[in-house]
């Protein structure tokens, strides 16, 4: 920054948090258009809606192939640094100082973490002068409120080097505005949940085809996903997770017939392929006599549990109406045995077994 102060003519540098959604795209664009040198930062927490899921499910593959954060960077003509924060982020999910939103989304702590990381990190190779986010006051009930805005600025350590171009006019002038690095008159005063101003601004920039994720930028806002994560903690008796755990929660039907084990049943070929990558870690089942799902068994099943598991797997196979389906049970050791079972009747499958509703 001293360098910038000496060479006052150099453009100021800003790090923009880029989620892949419209708001952060607009925020970066507004500042970019004022001649600021903007680089994007995107954090990969492991819970991001981006990426993974479209690669797993076949039906989603054709629909969405791109990484939206990269797409945004390309549209804006800025660099984008994608940062793996899977490990560090765990503490945010497990121990959020400010608590959770509607589900297990620790949005306020998450924002503080990301702004701090963008500010202090080694992600960008050179220093920069301020951080940009696409936050809008009143947009999200938990994290984007008038009273949370200063909390994020303060606790992230960014202070008044945190600029929210889309709602800046509702907030006191920040350092970039006071110093004239950006012209406050060209910033906006958006507030509330109405998306029309953002859409109009997008249109004025000629942006179309941008991503509009429903709910939020991550799976933690998803009620069913959060239900599965809470179930995982409860069944293990410890609030913890590793990367494989949170990936597996995105895939398949999760069925828990008893507290000590649950089944993850692939719903289609893409999911079956994905689940088969975990064969070394779990007991798994596949149907032999009929086409059917790949089913992982997470926990400590007894032999009787495996019979029920096989009947459930058979229920989701092409042999669901057959009198008998043969199912192979494989152990991580390589041991295998074949069971012949009657597919579970729909009435025998307790609704409460479905984890996450």
């Amino acid at each position, binding site marked *: 920054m001293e360098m910038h102060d000496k060479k006052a003519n150099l453009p100021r540098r800003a790090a923009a948090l880029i989620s892949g959604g419209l708001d952060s795209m607009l925020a970066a664009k507004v500042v970019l258009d004022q001649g600021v040198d903007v680089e994007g930062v995107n954090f*990969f927490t492991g819970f991001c809606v981006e990426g993974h899921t479209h690669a797993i499910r076949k039906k989603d593959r054709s629909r969405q192939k791109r*990484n939206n954060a990269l797409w945004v960077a390309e549209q804006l003509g800025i660099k984008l640094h*994608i940062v793996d924060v899977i490990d560090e982020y765990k503490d945010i999910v497990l121990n959020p100082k400010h608590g959770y939103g509607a589900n297990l989304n620790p949005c306020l702590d998450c924002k503080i973490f990301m702004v701090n990381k963008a500010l202090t990190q080694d992600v960008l190779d050179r220093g920069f002068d301020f951080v940009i986010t696409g936050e809008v006051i009143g947009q999200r009930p938990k994290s984007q409120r008038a009273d949370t805005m200063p909390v994020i600025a303060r606790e992230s350590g960014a202070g008044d080097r945190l600029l929210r171009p889309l709602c800046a006019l509702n907030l006191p002038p920040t350092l970039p505005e006071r110093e004239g690095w950006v012209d406050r008159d060209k910033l906006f005063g958006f507030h509330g949940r109405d998306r029309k101003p953002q859409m109009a601004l997008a249109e004025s920039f000629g942006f179309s085809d941008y991503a509009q994720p429903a709910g939020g930028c991550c799976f933690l806002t998803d009620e069913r996903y959060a239900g599965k994560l809470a179930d995982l903690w409860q069944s293990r008796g410890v609030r913890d997770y590793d990367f494989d755990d949170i990936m597996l929660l995105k895939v398949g039907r999760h069925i828990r017939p008893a507290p000590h084990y649950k089944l993850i049943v692939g719903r289609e070929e893409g999911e079956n392929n994905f689940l088969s990558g975990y064969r070394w870690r779990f007991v798994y089942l596949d149907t032999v006599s009929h086409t059917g799902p790949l089913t992982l068994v997470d926990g400590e099943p007894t032999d009787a549990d495996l019979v029920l598991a096989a009947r459930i797997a058979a229920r989701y196979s092409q042999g669901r109406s057959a009198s008998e389906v043969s199912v192979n049970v494989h152990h991580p050791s390589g041991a295998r045995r074949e069971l012949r079972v009657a597919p579970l009747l729909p009435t025998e499958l307790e609704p409460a077994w479905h984890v996450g509703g």
Partner: protein
Amino acid sequence: MSGARNPPRAPGTRLDARGLLCPLPVIRTQDKIRTLKSGEVLEVVATDPGVLHDIPAWCRVHGHRLLMSEQRNDGFRFHIEVA
């Protein structure tokens, strides 16, 4: 490497990102490239079909040159020249 002045085009470094789902192959590519010098060539192999879009897009936004991309039955292979 001979003493000739021809810039080397063969990859000097290889990154195995097989089995990783997007955006992890891109993240690993980015982290690896940070350790390389301009003009060096990195080979990346990956299996997630998302890389077909993500790696070229990431190269474009950073100005790295994608010298080659290849689809094989065991995955995808890219040669990237560091900007």
